[in-house]
Each structure stands twice: as C-alpha cells, then as structure tokens.
C-alpha cells in the first residue's frame, strides 16, 4: 500500500528537548506529524514516548521544574505550542488527549461530553445537545448510551468509558488527538472497537498514539516512530518500519531482541 509521499504537515517537533529538573528526557527530537494520519510512538518503557506525547498539549506545565527547549510547530497557523505566550488551555482545546485508563468525571454521560464546551462558555442547550450527540456518534458509542445520557458515566463498562473519553475529547473539535496507551486496560473486543474507531477518526483528525502493543502500532498507524533513551531513533512509514527497518536498534526492538 502506498501512502502519498508528501502529506500536509499538522505539526512538527523541531530540536525538541525536555527536562524533568536536571534529567534530560527528550534529546533533540525532530519529527513531522502528518495531517489526518495516525502516527504511532513505540519504544521500551522510559524511552520518552509518553513525555513526548504530553508535550503536545502542555501537560508538563502542571509541574514546576519541567522545562522545554526547541519548539513544536502547529499548522496551518505555524503556532509554537510550547511558546510561553501561548495559553495551555487554548492548546488543549486544539489538542485533545485520551489516557491509558478511562477517566470519566463523576458526572452524567451527557455532562462528561459537554464539559469542555461548558468550559469554553457554551451554555445553549440546543448547541450542547447537538455537539454531545455528534461527539458520541463520532466515538461510536451513541447507540449504546442515547437512552441513558443522564446516568453516571461510571456505570459504563471499561471499553464504553474509554469511548466516552474519546467523545469528550472530540466534543471541542480538536485538530490533533493524543492517545496514551488507550487500550492497555481493555479486553481484546473493546480494543478492536477502539482500533476501528481510530481508523474512522483519522478522516477528520490527526492522531498521535503511544502503544506498547507493537501489533497495534502496525495495525492502526500510517507512520511509526521508534524512540529509545529519549532519542528518536527512526521515523518512517509503518509498512517499512515493520518489514525493513533501517536502524539495527529498531530491528532489535520490534523483533523482540532487546535485552
């Protein structure tokens, strides 16, 4: 399968370094994120892939002592997401995130999805109804919850909760969605549903996904980046990375030879 050689850029890391206090967790990362494509980040624990992912919506700002160098350019407007002048709340409106464990708020299904819109100041009932429905449809959970929108989100199954979290992220019409091991707490059926959803979502949004499951990276992504010890070792088309990686370290990792 051929992918276009030069898809449009949605974002690009440029000479990105990141420090947890003194510890350098990301070392001079340069990497494109292509528009409306799925990019997977793989690598052993502690390689920096989650640190990298979280840089995209400024999650690290929450802790003192964390420091970025370099930039993450966001297109089409060429904003540097890491610039201190850019409001992290604004960044998070454009860059949504879904975590490893489903984390619905202790509220109703409806309010979970409406939350981001209310934060943005939207209180018109009609607008909220429309947006919540379309987000729930987008996350492929509408049919399952449309008759119980006022029930507590915590009553849903794990797989449903995760799709609800995706709906919550979709409600604000993000341009980039970050997934941090979104299926590691789910069974194979719920995992397949999320993967199918990722496939649907990429028609309208760019996706960056961290996964420990290499088969999952191979299945869902168009591009794959292998990270090791804070460095970007290899970035390429997923088809090439899993058949003929260029770097021996990538080869060793994906064939299960890493000691």
């Amino acid at each position: 399968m051929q992918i276009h050689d030069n898809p449009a850029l949605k974002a690009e890391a440029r000479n990105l370094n990141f420090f947890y206090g003194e510890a350098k967790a990301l070392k001079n990362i340069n990497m494109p994120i292509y528009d409306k494509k799925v990019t997977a980040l793989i690598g052993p624990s502690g390689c920096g892939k989650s640190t990298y992912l979280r840089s995209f919506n400024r999650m690290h700002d929450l802790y003192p002592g964390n420091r970025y160098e370099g930039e993450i350019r966001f297109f089409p407007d060429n904003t540097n997401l890491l610039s201190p002048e850019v409001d992290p709340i604004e960044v998070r409106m454009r860059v949504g995130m879904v975590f490893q464990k489903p984390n619905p708020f202790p509220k109703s299904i409806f309010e979970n999805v409406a939350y981001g819109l209310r934060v943005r100041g939207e209180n018109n009932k009609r607008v909220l109804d429309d947006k919540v429905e379309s987000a729930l449809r987008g996350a492929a959970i509408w049919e399952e919850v449309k008759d119980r929108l006022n029930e507590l989100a915590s009553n849903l199954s794990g797989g449903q909760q995760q799709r609800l979290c995706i709906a919550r992220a979709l409600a604000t019409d993000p341009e980039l969605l970050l997934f941090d091991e979104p299926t590691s707490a789910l069974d194979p059926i719920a995992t397949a549903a999320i993967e199918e959803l990722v496939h649907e979502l990429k028609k309208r949004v760019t996706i960056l996904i961290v996964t420990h499951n290499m088969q999952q990276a191979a299945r869902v992504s168009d591009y794959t980046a292998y990270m090791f010890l804070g460095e970007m070792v290899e970035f390429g088309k997923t088809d090439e990375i899993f058949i003929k990686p260029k770097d021996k370290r990538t080869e060793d990792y994906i064939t299960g030879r890493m000691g």
Partner: protein
Amino acid sequence: MNDSQHLSSQFDEDLSRLRTAVLQMGGLVETQVSSAIEAYGTGEVTSVKYIVDTDRKVNDLELAIDDDCAHLIAKRQPAASDLRLVFGISKIVTDLERAGDEAKKIAKGVRRIYEAGQMPSQYGIGVRHIAEAALGMLRQALDAFARLDTELAVRVIQADANVDTEFKSIMRQLITHMMEDPRTITTSIDIIWIARAVERIGDHAKNVAEHVVYIVEGRDIRHPPKENKA
C-alpha cells in the same frame, strides 16, 4: 541479517530448527537432481526408484515446514527480518519441492529412453552440460540461504540466463536431428522433456536465490521492470 538473540530463546530455537529443516530438504532435492543426471549418463535405471522415494520425503518436509511457518506466525507474530525469513522460507520450500518434481520427471524420462533401448545420442551431451550447470545453481542457492550470502545469490540469478540459452540451442539441435531422421523422434522428444525439466530446475534455483535476497535485504527483486520501456 540479525544474528543477536531474541529475549525468548524458544523463538530462537524455533527459527533455527526451521532453517535446518529447509537445508535438510534442500539436501534431499540436490541428491534427487544429481542422481537423475547420473542416471541419464549411465542408464542406471535402479536409481529412478530412489528418486521417486525421495520425492515423498521431500513432499512431507514441504508440508511440515509450511505448517511450522504458519504456527510461528500465529504464535510469535514475527516482524522485520524474522518475518522476512519465515515468509521467504515458505516460498523457498515451494520451489525446492518443484525442483524435486522436475528431477522425478527426468528420472522417468531416462527410464523410458533406456527401456526402449535407445541410448541418448551425441545430441544428449548438451543436456548433461546444462544439467550440471542447473545442479550447480541449486547447490549455490542453498549455500546462499545457509550463509545468507546475497552476493552468491546474485551470481545464481545471473547464471540462469546461460542455462536458458543453452536449453534453446539444445532444442534447435534436436529439432534438426528429428527432421533428418524421423526414427529418432520418440527419443528426441523424451530428451526435450528432460532438457526442459533441467531448465526448470535452474529457474527454481534462481527463485530460491531471489528469496534469499528478499530475506536478507528486504528487496523483492522478482519481476524487475523492463528497461527503456516507453
């Protein structure tokens, strides 16, 4: 090719057993082909039975190796060089098995010729010559697989053109021969079948060599585009 060890030593063992089985199968096919060539030269019809019996073993090995490949894919989900190795092996055994079939055809042709009391004439000498060349290609292709040696594999691929050219020249000679003396038609046709089988063995050896290049380099060099094609 990656020679460092997997985290799972069982995986390493599975892969190494698979490679050994391919070489064992290749060894059997090699003896089939060399016995068939020998029978052609000497008229030793008894070796025909040996070749046919060996073919059963070769077939069994093909099935067993393919089955192992399927299991390995299902259980280990091999990637990159491991995936190419398993995939390549599955194709190599197909070519080896077919080369064995061609050896069997040669053996049966030889039996027909000698049982009819028709020794191959001087026109048969050319066949022995390309048969040695095809056998050499098969041996080298198997060596290339054993050592994952792409240079050797490329030499095998290049050698195939010579076998093809010689086959065509044998055909021309035999056709002339048949026109000159129609009594030789039956034997000549048998010799053509034999020469054809030899030429096919060369093709299979070439295919094996191409699979070796794929395994090592991840390049599929079958069906190269024709140059200067408008």
